[in-house]
């Protein structure tokens, strides 16, 4: 352990004061004023008793503790890594410029050049390398140049050098090719010697610096691969980059400028799951990895049709934003179409997986009703039905009893205190407290089992006139019925956020269970709050694109950062400070009591 301000440890000397007070203080304490001194028998106290005054001992102890704790607290205890104390035995410490241009030489060539420029006595010394991290001012410690991650980013080396200069190590050197112009602005401290890397004839490297796999879900799905190539040589290089996915090879020829990196995109890869291989061919001029593999997961795509009353333009404004927000489920991609309920006869419902109807059904023609019935009877389709009339109308149109389905869920939105009443209930009168139902979906739904009579003639309503959601689950599909007959404001449901969880509920039934198992619990809860988070900006919702990217470095050897093992990072040890504070706080009342008693 070290201290931030060790000078304060001198305060420990103050402990001599209470010790002196204890030793020199009268053994019998202060004289006690009394009245009947004449009749007090005189007996010499025993020597042992003279010294033994518990509270005086305690007082001394508490005083010493108090002073010591304060001194240590002011001194600021710090943690020191084990590195400084034992492990580092290197004799040379180097800050190596990890810009791409330094990679024009192989690690062996760099090390050979460095050693050639070291003084004689250090030529065989071991070297530890510090490199800058692009997103942090901390320095990373690596033991060999092979572990150095070369960065394509602009790095402010000036700050890092200043930090490096603070480290108390001998034989500090700076390794760089000094090609960048900003080195001119860096002030090199005296104790750091610079070692310049010089290009040799024909030294260059071309390779993939990193690559990303991009899924874009924006009214459709596309898989893209983005690769960052670099050319650290001093001359142009022509390379051919190929992407191999599911047996298809896509190639591009590009010319890489000297000492620069360059992005290359492969868009619109086919859907599906499989490995993607990226290969760079530069006619044996590569000394680094020139290929990498990705795994593309399949993306599910579904078509949703929203039927409501009104013109198509109105409906787009009303529903589309919310619908697009609803499809923010990972690996789920949806195309949403909006149509008027009156155009139902012209629509091909088989092309859609999920049907959302927010309209009155009783006025529909018999043919349209039959069409809806046929759609619902398909066990793989889902319907979200937001009715403006009674529940019985839906029963009639969709012939729910004939589907062999049971009503297995009810819920209110928002969940609240309400009683479910069924006027046509034939059995004994009973009311159900909605709040007492199953609390599985606490955030939105409150499911519960609901019994029906034999004829299924039921009509539900909630006393507080909240909409009642009834979910009917089929083999794979489900049917969500939102009965809003009592509240005309719900005919504008498309504008409200309620639509989002309804869509998500319908969509989640389509998720591949094999995939779900691999995912976190988030997958099993499509109503998790992050998915509910609604953007106030409509355009943002339109343009929403979900990206899944993966960053893979060429040299993925893990090197520990200084924050984990670094020798030079001394952090105030707050655990000890906190402990000291606790002791101090506990000590104070005891000390005050003893002081008063004394």
């Amino acid at each position, binding site marked *: 352990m070290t201290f931030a301000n060790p000078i304060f440890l001198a305060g420990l000397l103050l402990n001599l004061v209470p010790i002196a007070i204890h030793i020199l203080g*009268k*053994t*019998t*304490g*202060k*004289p*006690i*004023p*009394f*009245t*009947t*001194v*004449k*009749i*007090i*028998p*005189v*007996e*010499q*106290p*025993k020597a042992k*008793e*003279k010294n*033994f*005054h518990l509270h005086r001992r305690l007082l001394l102890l508490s005083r010493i503790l108090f002073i010591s704790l304060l001194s240590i607290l002011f001194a600021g205890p710090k943690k020191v890594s084990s590195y400084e104390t034992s492990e580092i035995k290197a004799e040379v410490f180097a800050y190596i410029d990890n810009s791409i241009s330094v990679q024009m030489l192989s690690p062996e060539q760099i090390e050979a050049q460095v050693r050639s420029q070291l003084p004689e006595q250090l030529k065989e010394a071991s070297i530890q390398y510090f490199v800058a991290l692009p997103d942090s001012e901390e320095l990373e410690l690596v033991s060999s140049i092979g572990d150095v991650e070369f960065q394509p980013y602009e790095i402010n080396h000036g700050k890092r050098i200043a930090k490096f200069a603070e480290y108390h190590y001998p034989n500090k050197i700076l390794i760089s090719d000094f090609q960048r112009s900003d080195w001119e602005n860096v002030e090199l401290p005296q104790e750091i010697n610079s070692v310049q890397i010089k290009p040799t004839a024909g030294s260059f490297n071309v390779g993939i610096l990193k690559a990303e796999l991009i899924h874009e879900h924006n009214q459709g799905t596309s898989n893209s691969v983005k690769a960052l190539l670099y050319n650290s040589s001093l001359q142009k290089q022509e390379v051919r980059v190929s992407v191999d996915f599911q047996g298809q090879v896509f190639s591009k020829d590009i010319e890489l400028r000297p000492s620069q990196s360059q992005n290359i995109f492969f868009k619109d890869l086919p859907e599906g799951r499989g490995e993607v291989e990226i290969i760079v061919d530069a006619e044996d001029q590569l000394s680094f990895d020139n290929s990498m593999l990705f795994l593309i997961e399949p993306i599910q795509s579904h078509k949703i049709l929203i039927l409501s009353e009104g013109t198509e333009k109105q409906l787009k404004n009303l529903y589309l934003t919310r619908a697009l927000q609803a499809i923010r489920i990972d690996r789920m991609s949806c195309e949403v179409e909006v149509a008027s309920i009156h155009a139902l006869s012209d629509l091909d419902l088989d092309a859609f997986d999920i049907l959302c109807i927010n309209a009155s059904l009783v006025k529909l023609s018999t043919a349209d009703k039959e069409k809806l019935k046929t759609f619902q009877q398909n066990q793989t389709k889902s319907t979200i039905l937001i009715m403006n009339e009674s529940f019985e109308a839906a029963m009639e149109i969709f012939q729910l009893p004939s589907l062999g389905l049971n009503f297995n869920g009810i819920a209110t939105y928002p969940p609240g205190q309400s009683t479910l009443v069924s006027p046509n209930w034939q059995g004994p009168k009973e009311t159900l407290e909605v709040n007492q139902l199953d609390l599985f979906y606490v955030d939105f739904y409150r499911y519960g089992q609901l019994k029906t009579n034999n004829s299924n003639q039921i009509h539900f309503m909630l006393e507080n006139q909240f909409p009642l959601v009834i979910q009917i689950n089929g083999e794979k599909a489900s049917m969500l019925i939102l009965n809003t007959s009592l509240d005309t404001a719900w005919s504008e449901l498309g504008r409200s956020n309620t639509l989002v969880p309804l869509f998500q509920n319908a969509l989640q039934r389509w998720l591949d269970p094999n995939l779900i198992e691999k995912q976190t619990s988030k997958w099993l809860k499509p109503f998790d709050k992050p998915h509910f988070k609604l953007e106030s900006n409509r355009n943002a919702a339109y343009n929403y694109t979900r990206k899944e990217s993966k960053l893979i470095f060429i040299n993925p050897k893990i090197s520990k950062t200084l924050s984990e093992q670094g020798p030079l990072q001394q952090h105030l040890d707050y655990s000890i400070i906190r402990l000291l504070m606790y002791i101090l706080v506990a000590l104070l009342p005891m000390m005050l009591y003893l002081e008063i008693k004394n």
Partner: protein
Amino acid sequence: MQVNEFMAMVESLIVQCQAPAHARSLVEGFINGIHRGIFSGSGTEFMQYRPYHQGDELKHLDWKLYARVGEKQIRLYREETNCHCWFVLDMSSSMSYRNNTSKVSKFEYACLYIACLGWLSIKQGDSIGLIAYNEKVNAFVEPGSRRDTLETIVLALLKLTPAGQANHPTMFSTLQEHIGNRGKLSVLSDMLDFDDTLLGCFKHLTVLHHDVELLQVLDPYEQDFPFKGGQQFVDIETGQIIETAALEVKDLYQLRMSEHLKKLQDTAIQSQLHYKLMLSDQPIAQYLMAKGDLS
């Protein structure tokens, strides 16, 4: 503390103990009280007849008796008098002792007792007076039966601070000058330096039909000596310092103290003096009520 506050405290104490306001003895006096005087005079309670002698005031002649029997008789009445209650307060510095846990010193306790008993006495029409002394008499209040007198006494008590040593002869000379005939004398002191001579003086007062009550005010520490370990004790009055092992000598001290108290009590009884020990940590009401029971 203001006089008013002090009086309020005294009254609340009186209410607490609800001490009956009875005097204990027959005394001579001038102001009508519930004490019965042994001399006939202008009282209201008929005592006896005596034959008329020339020179008697005719207003005392019982004309109805003369008309009925034909004898000239003078009506004699038992005169109701008040009593002079003297409070003699020792204000030597030893009275200022107060242990760490106690709320009041012996002196403050005695003052409070005087105020309470004075209040009761005034209520029943007695006169109260005060003599507070150490080397000299520091406060002297002539007996009076008005509430003003009590306030004067309380004001005087509040101004007093115990100091020095008690000079009992000085107190006695002042007392003898003013005490007059029969009366009641309450001596409040810790009586640590009371000797037979002094008690003899008090005995002399009882011979003169004074009712002398010795109220010894002690701090509980003075009786129990609850000290531990090696301690230094400094005498408040003399400044004498001794060092002793307190716990070891505790038993011996208690023995000596009880002997001292026993001796004092025995001498007081022999001298027909009333003696009472008051501990300053006990509720004052307890002693006031005990006083009520005496009457």
